[in-house]
């Protein structure tokens, strides 16, 4: 029956090509516009580390201005997103989390030994060795630096595959050296391409940027002064003229993550944070009310408004656009089906049931919807292409993957069948006597 109906649908569509093409265009436009927005939204709101997103926690404590709460870039009051060096050092010392890492973004000029590669600037993630195990970062060669290198801030480095390809031609470079600034750094490991989307561990800088291509021990900062590439925020008037003074200041610039695998460790860590802050209050720090926060990855993405409001509004508007296209299609379907009244009357007179008429027309609508979905896919490719051309750094977001392609087709067929229900119901009400009455 389905294939019979499919054949009939094809014949019927061929009878009125122009009206059916109009319907394909209307559905296609609706799908094209909404799928472009859905793609951006889906890419932005994806879970970057689904296997343990509920065990990884961004840690926040509130040592901000007593008179004025910390505000995010859009002026919403919240806990500060980063930590001072003093507090980060204390957080690093807690033994409660299974794994933990302090981190910030540094900037180095790499001077390759190889003359064919010119010196270049490189953003470096300065972090603790747990970073890799905590975030499931895959290694190709070697591994992370040792405990002692981590504690002492030895000049060691983990590099990404891209950096390894560039500097060492993709060989196993463990033990080789890289010159940055005035020092040589020894490679302990090479990681595979790793680009969580969004880059959840440091949303304060760029949510959809690329992950760093070089990693170094956080503790290096304790004995060497480097350029920092991330944001630094402060509220307290402090005289800072040296590296030492900067590390001792209340300026915040360090992110801190902890892996807390169960409710027990989560509660324990929370208590530990509270007791630390209460103790500091006695020393005159933490002038604000106790206001610590542990956010797992999904909560953290929410807190940071990783999907901008603009995208949510655009998504809503694009659905309204799709709705207009569908109402338009309903109108055209009604007009189209009313043109088939006498044929349907005849079919009814020859014994077709109401349901078979209804079914037959839904199949026809679904076929039109499939056409609309394909056209819509083409349009959304075009829309995303235009977006990639006009905005720098959106390449990873404005890309459709297979599930999204399938979703586009499914949405088109679902939406058009939804639009077809009323017209199909109307046409199946035609009385069998109709064909005999006229003419």
């Amino acid at each position, binding site marked *: 029956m389905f294939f019979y109906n499919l054949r009939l649908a094809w014949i019927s569509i061929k009878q009125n090509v122009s009206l059916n093409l109009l319907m394909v265009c209307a559905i296609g436009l609706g799908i094209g516009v909404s799928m472009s927005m859905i793609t951006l939204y889906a890419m932005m709101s994806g879970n970057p580390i689904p296997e343990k997103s509920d065990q990884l926690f961004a840690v926040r404590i509130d040592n901000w201005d007593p008179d004025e709460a910390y505000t995010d870039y859009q002026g919403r009051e919240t806990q500060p997103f980063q930590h001072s060096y003093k507090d980060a050092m204390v957080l690093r010392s807690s033994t409660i989390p299974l794994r933990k890492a302090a981190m910030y973004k540094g900037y180095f000029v790499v001077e390759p030994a190889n003359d064919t590669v010119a*010196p270049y600037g490189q953003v470096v993630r300065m972090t603790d060795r747990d970073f890799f195990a905590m975030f499931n970062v895959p290694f190709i060669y070697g591994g992370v630096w040792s405990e002692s290198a981590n504690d002492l801030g030895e000049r060691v480095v983990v590099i990404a595959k891209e950096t390894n390809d560039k500097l060492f031609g993709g060989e196993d470079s463990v033990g080789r050296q890289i010159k940055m600034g005035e020092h040589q750094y020894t490679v302990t490991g090479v990681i595979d391409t790793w680009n969580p989307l969004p880059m959840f561990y440091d949303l304060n800088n760029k949510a959809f940027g690329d992950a760093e291509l070089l990693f170094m021990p956080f503790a290096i900062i304790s004995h060497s002064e480097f350029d920092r590439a991330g944001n630094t925020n402060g509220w307290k*008037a402090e005289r800072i*003229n040296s590296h030492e003074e900067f590390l001792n200041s209340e300026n915040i610039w360090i992110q801190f993550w902890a892996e807390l695998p169960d409710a027990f460790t989560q509660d324990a860590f929370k208590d530990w944070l509270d007791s630390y802050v209460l103790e500091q209050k006695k020393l005159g720090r933490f002038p604000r009310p106790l206001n610590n926060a542990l956010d797992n990855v999904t909560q953290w993405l929410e807190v940071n408004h990783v999907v901008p409001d603009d995208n949510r509004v*655009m998504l*809503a*508007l694009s659905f309204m656009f799709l709705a207009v296209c569908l*109402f338009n299609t309903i109108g055209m379907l009604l007009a189209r089906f009313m043109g088939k009244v006498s044929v349907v009357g005849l079919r009814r007179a020859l014994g077709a049931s109401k349901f078979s008429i209804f079914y037959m027309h839904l199949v026809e609508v679904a076929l039109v919807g499939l056409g609309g979905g394909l056209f819509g896919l083409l349009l959304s490719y075009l829309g995303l292409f235009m977006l990639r051309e006009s*905005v720098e750094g959106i390449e990873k977001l404005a890309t459709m993957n297979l599930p999204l392609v399938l979703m586009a087709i499914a949405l088109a067929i679902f939406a058009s069948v939804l639009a077809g229900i009323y017209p199909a119901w109307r046409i199946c009400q035609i009385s069998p006597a109709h064909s005999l009455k006229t003419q």
Partner: protein
Amino acid sequence: MEIRPILSAILRNKTGAILLAIQIALTLAVVVNAMFIVQQRLKFIGRPTGIDIENIIVISSQGFGSSYDHEQTVFSDLELLRAIPGVKYAAHISRFPLSGGGSRSGFTSTTDSDAESVGANYYFAQNGTIDALGVKLAAGRDFLPTEILTGEQIDNGVVASSVLITKALAEKLFPDGNALGNLVYGGTGDSSRVVGIIEKMHGAWVSWDGLNQVLIFPGLRKDSGQRYLVRTEPGQRDRLIPEVESVLEKASVSRYLDRMEPMSEMVGRSYDNDRVVANGLIIVIVLLVSITGLGIVGLASFLVRQRTKQVGTRRALGAQKYHIVRYFLVENWLITTMGVVVGTVMAFGLNYWTATEFSLPKLDPVFVPVGILGIWVLGVLAAAGPAKRASNISPAIATRTV
């Protein structure tokens, strides 16, 4: 006018009319809100910066190695840049305005520690930097060469004797208008005298509401990176970029150039999101209006076709062509207006949602009548064709059976 009979005809053919009215309502709601957002964003992007961004090339480079001497490099680079024909000014600045990166701090006009401080974006620059930016002084003067602090002095805590501030900051710090010649205090109590007031200059972050509050200290901080502003004769910018690049590459300094582009491109990137939102919504508006226009044409043609006999009869009974055109236009107008009434409510509802759920501004109500007028015009234009066709139906149709 024969509104009542037309209305009853619409009511007896509800489905098509309701479908179209819903389309029009949704269209109005979306278009009104989208137009409003587009206008907001275009206004936001188009704000005057006070800076001659069209004629400036921004260059940043990164020095490395133990032999790198920051002050030496900056002075010799600037000399080379100024010698290029077509370059009007070249100067150094600690960060680029409108780049999204910079420093901000609180300043006051008194030593009173309870005084509310005013946030300002601050830069370190030298004498001549304001010429390279192309900002205008509303009062006072530029820095004197003797006022410029060296990196050494800054590290040792020497306080700048003078500062330049923008008029917007001056008005906040000195509401009485006596900023020039007065002292500005930083958070640590250090003070500097205002020697010049800049008419207008944008700071670092386009979405910060203190964008116009800028303060410039005289100095060249120790740094491994250099940031140059090269302001060219009008129209020379693009021609000079390769020349500037080769001049800097020839200078024998251990550094690499990491940015070399027109300032307008850098500023454009800071507004990427707003531009994409505006362009995207313009596309949505155009498509939506076309789709709805087609919907109106569709329904009107359907009604005309369905009523061929009726129109012929009316013509046989003496209706003029314009009676027929008017009939269809009025019918269409009534349907559009029903949609528009619902759409107005929906437009405000949609805005209420975006304003409460997201931090989008409240709709400027003027867009509603503009949208309604637009929809009416669209309705008349779209229905005109089918109505014209109806008026050409021959009255002889009336005598044909079936």
